[in-house]
C-alpha cells in the first residue's frame, strides 16, 4: 500500500506516520507532503530514517505541484491532515483558514479525482515492474476533520452522531465543515472513494504549544502563569494522539466508503480541571491568569463514536497515563520548538 500523507510534519500527522512505520509492514511507501509551517518540524517524524518514508516540501494549495507529486508517487491511499487548526487565530485571519482548509482540500480532491480517472494512464515501460505493487482500484481519501463541525453541545444535550446537522460556530470549524462538504460532493459527483473522521481534542507529544494542554505545560515549566480563556468553564473531550493514530488506521483499513466516523473519548474536562491536573504533574506552584475569552467559545462538544467501535477500535491509553506521557515528553524535549 502506498500512502500519501498531507500535513505529516504537524502534530497528528507526524504521530500517525510514526505509528504506521512502526506497526504496518503492509504499507510499502509513505510520502509526506507538508509546507513546514510555523507549527511543523522536519524531525517531528521520529522514524524519518525508515527507507519507506519520503518527505517533499510543498504547499497543498499549489495545484500544479500537487498534481505532479500525485502523478509521480501514485498513491492508493491519501490521508489528508494538512489544515490550519487553531481556533484563536481563525477569528483574526479567516482568509488563511479558507485558503488552506477549503482550497487545500479542493486541491487534494482534484488530485485524487485525477488519479482515480487516470489509473489506466500510461506508465513508462521502464517503471512497468514498479506498477505491480500499485493499486488498480483507484485512490481512496481519508479526510481528517473535527468534532467542532457539529458546533456546541449543551450539558443536557445528547452526543452527536455522524448524521447530526453541522453547525460550526467559528471560522476554523466553518472551514473544516466546508472542506468536509466538498469531500462528500466529490464523492457523490465523481465517485471518489472517501472516509471522514471527526475527532475530539487531541493531545500528546509534538503538539505545538498554542493548544491548551501543551500551552499550560509550557507555561508551568517556564514558571509563567497559564492563560485561561474567560472563566475556563468550557468543557472538552480529550483524546491521546496514539489512540487517534490507531483510529485513523482502523478507518483507513476497515471504514466503509462514503462514511463519517467520530473519534471520541470519555475524558471530558473543563479548562480549569485540566489546569489542576497538569499542576499536580508539572509544577505545584503554577498560577493562572484569566484573559479575554474568544469572541465565541463553544461550551462543550460531545460525539458518539459507536460506529468506530464497531470497526474494532477502542480507546487504549487511560487519560491520566496519557497526560503523564505527554508531560514527560515536554520535560525531556524542552528545545523541540526553539
Amino acid at each position, binding site marked *: 500500500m502506498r500512502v500519501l500523507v498531507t500535513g505529516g510534519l504537524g502534530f497528528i500527522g507526524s504521530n500517525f506516520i510514526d505509528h504506521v512505520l512502526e506497526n504496518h509492514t503492509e504499507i510499502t511507501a509513505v510520502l509526506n507532503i507538508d509546507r513546514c509551517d510555523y507549527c511543523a518540524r*522536519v524531525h517531528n517524524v521520529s522514524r*524519518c*530514517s525508515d527507507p519507506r518514508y*519520503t*518527505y*517533499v516540501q510543498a504547499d497543498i494549495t499549489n495545484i500544479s505541484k500537487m498534481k505532479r507529486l500525485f502523478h*509521480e508517487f501514485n498513491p492508493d491511499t491519501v490521508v489528508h491532515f494538512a489544515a490550519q487548526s487553531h481556533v484563536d487565530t481563525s477569528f483574526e485571519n479567516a482568509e488563511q483558514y479558507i485558503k488552506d482548509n477549503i482550497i487545500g482540500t479542493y486541491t487534494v480532491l482534484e488530485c485524487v479525482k485525477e488519479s482515480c480517472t487516470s489509473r489506466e494512464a500510461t506508465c513508462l515501460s*521502464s*517503471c*512497468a515492474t514498479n506498477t505491480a505493487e500499485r493499486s488498480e482500484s483507484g485512490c481512496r481519501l481519508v479526510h481528517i476533520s473535527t468534532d467542532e463541525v457539529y458546533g456546541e453541545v449543551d450539558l443536557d444535550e445528547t452526543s452527536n452522531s455522524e448524521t447530526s446537522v453541522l453547525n460550526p460556530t467559528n471560522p476554523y470549524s466553518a472551514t473544516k465543515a466546508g472542506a468536509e462538504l466538498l469531500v462528500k460532493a466529490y464523492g457523490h459527483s465523481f465517485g471518489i472513494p472517501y472516509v471522514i473522521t471527526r475527532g475530539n481534542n487531541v493531545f500528546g507529544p509534538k503538539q505545538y504549544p498554542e493548544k491548551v494542554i501543551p500551552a499550560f505545560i509550557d507555561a508551568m515549566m517556564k514558571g509563567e502563569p497559564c492563560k485561561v480563556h474567560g472563566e475556563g468553564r468550557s468543557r472538552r473531550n480529550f483524546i491521546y494522539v496514539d489512540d487517534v493514530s490507531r483510529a485513523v488506521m482502523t478507518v483507513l483499513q476497515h471504514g466503509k466508503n462514503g462514511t463519517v466516523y467520530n473519534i471520541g473519548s470519555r475524558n471530558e474536562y473543563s479548562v480549569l480541571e485540566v489546569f489542576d491536573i497538569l499542576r499536580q504533574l508539572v509544577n505545584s506552584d503554577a498560577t493562572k491568569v484569566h484573559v479575554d475569552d474568544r469572541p465565541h467559545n463553544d461550551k462543550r462538544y460531545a460525539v458518539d463514536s459507536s460506529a468506530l467501535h464497531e470497526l474494532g477500535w477502542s480507546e487504549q491509553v487511560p487519560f491520566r497515563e496519557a497526560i503523564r506521557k505527554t508531560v514527560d515528553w515536554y520535560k525531556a524535549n524542552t528545545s523541540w520548538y526553539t
Partner: protein
Amino acid sequence: MKVLVTGGTGLVGSAIKEIRPDWIYIGSTEFGSLAREEHVCQMYESVGPVDAVIHLAANVGGLFKNMNKRAEMYEDNILMNTHIVSQAAKNKVPRVLTMLSTCIFPDGLKELRPSDLHTGPPHPSNEGYAYAKRVCEVHSRIIRETTNTWTTCIIPTNIYGPNDNFSIEDGHVVPALIHKAWLAKKNNEPLKLFGTGKAKRQFIHSRDIARIIVWAVELAENPPPEIVCAHGNEVSIGEVAQLIADATGCPGLEYIGGPDGQMNKKAIPGPGDFPVPVVSLEDGIRETVEWFDRVKMA
C-alpha cells in the same frame, strides 16, 4: 525495475542498497577498472538489459590525493564516466543517472546553482576531478538532447554516513574527523583542527541522497538535467567537529591554525520537487560514529 548501480559498495551505493536491496550493485573490483572500455562493455553484457543505470563509481579523494595524483584523477574519472554513459546509450538504457559534486563548481561563488557550473575554472586543487565531472554533465545532457534518453545529474553537497572512506589523509571532512576523533579519544587528547573552524558547509546524510536518487529513478518522469541536493542549513566545521567530539567522547577541540579554505558557499537545492533531507546532523553524526566504532572494534 532492474537497476544497475556502479560504485555499489561505497557510501551512497550502500545507502541505496538499504532501500532497494534487489537492485544490482557493482563493487570496484568486480569487473576491474571501469576506466577501461572493455571492462564496462563486459559489465553491461554480463548484467543484461536494465531499466536504469545509477553511476556512482568514481576515483575520489581529499585534498592530498587530488593535488598529488592530478593526472590519475582526471584520466580515471573522465574515462570511466565516458564509457559508462556512452555504453548506457549504446545499450539503450532508458534512464541514466550520474553523480557530480558541488566541489566542481567555479571557485569563489557564494551561491551554487546548476546554471553556474561552467562559468569559471574550478579550484586548482581538484582541477582533474572537477573537469572530468563537468564533462560528464555535458555528455549526459547531450545524450538527453540527441537521443531523448532520460538522463539527470545529481549534484550533492558534502555527503557523509556509514561505509565511507574514513582515511585521515584521503577521506572527506566528516569521516576523516571521525577517525581523528576516535584516535584522539584513545590517546585522551583533544580533537585537533586546522583553520578556525568558522568555514561553513552543507552536509547531507547518505540515506537522504539515496532517497532522492531512488525517487528520481523510479518516479520522476521528466527530471531536470541537473538536480542540486543539499540540506538547507549551513553548518560551521567547528560545529560539526564538536558534534563528532561529543559523539566520540574525546576531550574537546583544539585549533592548530592554518588556512580555512573557502569560508562559505551555499548550494541552492533544486530545481524540482524532490525528497527533502530529513536526517538531522546530530543523529547522522552519532550513527556514523557508532558505525565506525563497530567496524574499528570488529
